């Protein structure tokens, strides 16, 4: 049973995005976190970095893999989750909440139409 949250939209690279006022909050899904295993390190983008939709945002490392993660929307990096530097395991424990990765500002909201909703994402993962 794949864990998802209703409020978010999903990419086929297993990122989620949720709108919080002026900002778009981004993270990786429970499926991705489970596939990676215990996360050991996260490389986050610089504040102010400008991304296209599905542009490379950073890297998440575990003992068995180093996976790139991508921006679900076009936008500018406003915040990056500094807490992950000391405790990257937060992602494994709470990937939709405290384990957020990046917050974007000035994002292109039309991009949300290209993404899957929770139900569609669950079907997508089921087929993998």
């Amino acid at each position, binding site marked *: 049973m794949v864990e998802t949250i209703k409020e978010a939209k999903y990419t086929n690279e297993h990122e989620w995005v949720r709108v919080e006022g002026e900002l778009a909050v981004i993270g990786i899904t429970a499926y991705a976190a489970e596939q990676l295993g215990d996360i050991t390190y996260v490389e986050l983008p610089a504040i102010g970095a400008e991304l296209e939709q599905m542009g490379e945002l950073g890297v998440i490392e575990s003992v068995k893999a180093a996976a790139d993660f991508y921006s679900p929307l076009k936008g500018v990096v406003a915040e990056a989750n500094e807490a992950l530097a000391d405790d990257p*395991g937060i992602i494994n424990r709470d990937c939709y909440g405290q384990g957020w990765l990046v917050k974007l500002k000035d994002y292109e909201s039309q991009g949300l139409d290209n993404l899957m909703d929770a139900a569609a994402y669950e079907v997508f993962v089921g087929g993998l």
Partner: protein
Amino acid sequence: MKTLFERSRPGRRAASLPALDVPQAQAPQNLRRQSPPQLPELSEVEVVRHFTGLSRLNFGVDVGFYPLGSCTMKYNPKFTEEAARLPGLADLHPLLAQIEGGGPLTQGALTLLAELEEQLCRITGMDAFTLQPLAGAHGELTGIMLMAAYHRRRGNKRSLVLVPDSAHGTNPASAAMAGYQVVPVPSKDGVMDPEAFEAKLNDQVAGVMMTCPNTLGLFETHLARIAEAAHRVDALMYYDGANLNAILGYAKPAELGFDIVHLNLHKTFGTPHGGGGPGAGPVGVVERLAGFLPVPRLARAAEGLTLDFDRPESIGRIAPFYGNFGVLVKAYAYILALGGEGLKRVAEHAVLNANYLRVKLGRRWQVALDKPCLHEVVFSAADKLAAHHISAMDVAKALIDEGFHPPTVYFPLVVKEALMIEPTETETRETLDEFVAAMERIADAAETDPDKLKAAPVTTPVGRLDEVGAARNLDVALAPKCFG
């Protein structure tokens, strides 16, 4: 075990140095090191005991069976060690061969290199070899650079390299390092699918990197068709020689349609693995690529063998000198000892041993592909995982308690919970039977006592290590006591 630094005591000394027989000299104060390096201070007996103790925590081919797939952990003959240490070879400064008057003083070394190149040409069917690449992966990078040089010369603009989905990780890494994009091609029945291959082939493809037999231990049966298709679009065929042990004397890469080959002397030709090097990865090419080989090349002149740096089409220097000479000596001696018949017998017995294991292990373990293999065989522990939660990793750790080095696990990626076993030709039937018996005990334990497997290994100085902790809290060097 304590580290050297923890054993250090101020004032202890091991090495002895001669007293100064010339006036003392002073280094200028402003250039001197301010903080001392804090290297350990120990007596020789302490150093010897420390490293002897460390060696006893290790497992090598000299200790026991080491069936790592695609690594060819065959026995390393001792006479090759002696050869590499001969004073006329071990003491030779490489620049001697490059200065006037140095030629006559290096003919032995240069002759050895020339003969080794010739031997490797005969073994592979290629027209020319460079011995410079310092490891297999280095050979791959060199091979891809030769590929790029070829296309530049032809005025071709190519950006892609095709690899099978079962390829070793160095293949895509090497291609990417040389600036190419890698495209995987799916397998069918364990070998590269020729139709899928032809579908991906176009005039953007610089080359195809394959190994044969492949990482599943199977001969790439469609090679003739694949090579022909590749050559039709002027793409080059690259052979990763990691698995050459299986086909020595039975097939030659040049005759299989390959244009570039790299060999792993520390695999096929018995030079020791050293705990992770040094190795050697010579690269062979067909005639039309020979002009691109790195400099210097060996040349014959009236006065003997010389080094030729004047090769306008060469890709340049990829190593400081002529390769890992100390490793090359060992391979040369090995080939001399085995000879043509011996090398053929190597392949025969490597394949015999692997198939023997395939049949005997196959009674309790799931073989990945149900057909005869060549020098290595891949099993899957996926059924054990589903039924008893026992993974390939658990099997590996349990084998350590049984006194064996585990096979390669989780590779090739196309097989779930893969166990890749390459016994090599230097193992006795008794050893193989003991290994099978151990695997049967593990299969039993998976059913009746899985916790025992999960707790393995228990006979080693340490148990399973916290690798997550190691990566999260990086500790890669002992901090000195008074470091800035």
